[in-house]
Each structure stands twice: as structure tokens, then as C-alpha cells.
């Protein structure tokens, strides 16, 4: 299991800005190791964001997203105490899901 995500959700007015840092290698499949062999691609493909259990956004990523990806998005509505859930799945089928509370 991968490292936990760091999620920060801050409500301001009628919007909630969510910032997520995920811990993932995001290997492109283009790099070579010291013996000249290609390092196989390993990256997050699908990301799902939920507010109080309802999906508000999904994303599909390619290997061009940076290592330890950062993601920021803005949810309409949302108030202190609401639950934000972010899930990802990589191309090896690994999954991770983490929650945060809106502050």
C-alpha cells in the first residue's frame, strides 16, 4: 500500500478549495536504469474526488503527471465539517483512498 495522501480542504465563501498531495513514483516507462533496461511504467491512471460520498470529479492521468502528484480543484458549496474523499488507482491496480474534513 502506498503512502497516505495529504489532503487539505478549505472552505472560503461558497467554495471549497481542495489540495491533494499523493505519494506515488509516477514512473513514465521511458527512463532506463543503470544497466540500460527500461524501467516499466507505473503511474496513477484514475483519480476520483468525492464530497460527502458523492463523486464531484474524476480524472484520468497519463505518465506525464509529476512524481508525488499534486492536485488542486475547487468544489462549489462545501462547508466546515464536510468530508472530502480522494481515491486513486494506478496502472498496476493499486488503490488508495483517503479522507479529509473541510476546514
Amino acid at each position, binding site marked *: 500500500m502506498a503512502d497516505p495522501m495529504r489532503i487539505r480542504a478549505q472552505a472560503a465563501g461558497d*467554495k471549497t478549495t481542495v489540495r491533494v498531495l499523493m505519494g506515488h513514483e*509516477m514512473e*513514465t516507462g*521511458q*527512463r*532506463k*536504469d543503470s544497466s540500460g533496461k527500461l524501467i516499466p511504467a507505473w503511474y496513477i*491512471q*484514475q483519480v476520483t*474526488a468525492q*464530497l460527502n460520498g*458523492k*463523486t*464531484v*470529479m*474524476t*480524472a*484520468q*492521468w*497519463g*505518465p*506525464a*503527471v*509529476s*512524481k508525488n*502528484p*499534486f*492536485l*488542486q*480543484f*475547487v*468544489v*462549489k*458549496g462545501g462547508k466546515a465539517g464536510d468530508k472530502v474523499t480522494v481515491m486513486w488507482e494506478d496502472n498496476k491496480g493499486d488503490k488508495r483512498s483517503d479522507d479529509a474534513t473541510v476546514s
Partner: protein
Amino acid sequence: MQTRRDVLFHSAQVAALLAAAGMLPTLARAQAGAYNTAAFEAKTVADLVKALGASAPVESKDVTVTGPDIAENGAVVPVGASTSLPGVKRLLILVEKNPAVMAAMFELTDAVEANVATRVKMGQSSNVYAVAMMADGKMLFAQKEVKVTLGGCGG
């Protein structure tokens, strides 16, 4: 004794079962947004548009792409895409000269604003595009040149 007719009948049943068990989940997954491998493998913007089945993108002032003018480290380039237009279905972030053009595709719902930011890798100085796919199938884009001093795709 098993006749030819029986065998055929059984294989038809098996096929039907397979269809019920195997095919339906595929359909369900497709609706939930299966990973669009073709789009992520597209090498040029034209290929990508074809893979997404969209019309040719048009430059628009209502779409904004944010990013640095010069990125010192191509492995971590902060890029954002946003638009003020209503009815955006998807936001794409493209890097023109990367091995695969599309870096990320965000599928939006009514509950989020059309404003996302992330960090991408860039192999070399290139144009970065933010593309908004509207509900009516129109593609609107904004572009910005980002110069990279150290590429993020090498070893």
C-alpha cells in the same frame, strides 16, 4: 448420446452466460469512464482530437492556462487549467512536445468549478495547452509557451 444439435445449443448457452457475466461489467465500466488508453498514447494534438472523437479545437479567450514562463526543473512544472464558461465537461492539460501529448484529463461535474491545477513533467521547452471540452462537443483551448532548462523525462 450427445448430438451435434445439443453441442451447438450448449455452446450458445455458454456464450450467452459469458455475455451476461463478462460483457455487462465492461459496459458498466465504460460508462463510469474507462481509462482512455488511445487518447493517452496520442503523439500529436491531431491524433488526440481523433482519439477523443471531438471536433478541431478553437483558441478561446475564455479558457486560461497557467504555468511558469521558465521552468527550471522539467520534472515538476505547475500547470493549471480553468475557464469561466458554463457547461464544461472535461478539462485537458496537454504538453505539445512530450512523447504523449495528453498529460491529464479531468472529468468535471456540476459540483466543481472548471478550475484545476496539477504538476506535470516536460521533456523540453514546449507549448502547454489547456483544453476545455464543452457539453456540446466543442473544444476550446488556450496555450502558453513554457521554457524548460532541465528536461524531466530523461534518466
